[in-house]
């Protein structure tokens, strides 16, 4: 790809938007991967139980908190 095409500010903005979306998708994929193992422990049913559903939801939210905590700890503010 000719690098001069990247001087187009509209193209840059569109690429940046796709980059943000891709990063969000990657986070969702990673968390689903992790939380599936934590929350879907027994056999697979034809729907999730209420506890499985809330486990998955809690798992995602707690992960965000852990991420924040580890960053704060690492940078010396806890």
């Amino acid at each position, binding site marked *: *790809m*000719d690098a*001069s*095409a990247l*001087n*187009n500010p*509209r*193209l840059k903005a*569109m*690429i940046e938007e*796709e980059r943000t979306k*891709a990063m*969000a*998708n990657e*986070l*969702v*994929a990673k*968390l*689903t*991967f992790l*939380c*599936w193992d934590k*929350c*879907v422990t027994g*056999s*697979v*049913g*034809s*729907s*999730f139980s209420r506890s499985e*559903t809330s486990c*998955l*939801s*809690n*798992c*995602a*939210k707690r992960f*965000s908190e852990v991420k924040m905590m580890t960053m704060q700890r690492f940078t010396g503010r806890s």
Partner: protein
Amino acid sequence: MDSFSSSLPSSGPGANPDAVMEQIKAQLAQAYAQEFLETVGNKCFEKCVTKPGSSLSGSESSCISRCVDRYIEATGIVSRALFSSQR
């Protein structure tokens, strides 16, 4: 992502940004779908095929169908928990 950038259309200064973006979006979507399929395949193999036999049993097959549906549902639950809940 080297193979990704080398497969973009060669575009000069007059290239149409919308066409370039459509190509980028299509390739991103395809890469995402491939990765998703691989992940789901692995997870559901772990879940459903505990003792591999000489062929997939009926219960293993239906387990895999349910597992794929559940994994898609789980993706939605995680996505909403991350991006649409307000504290």
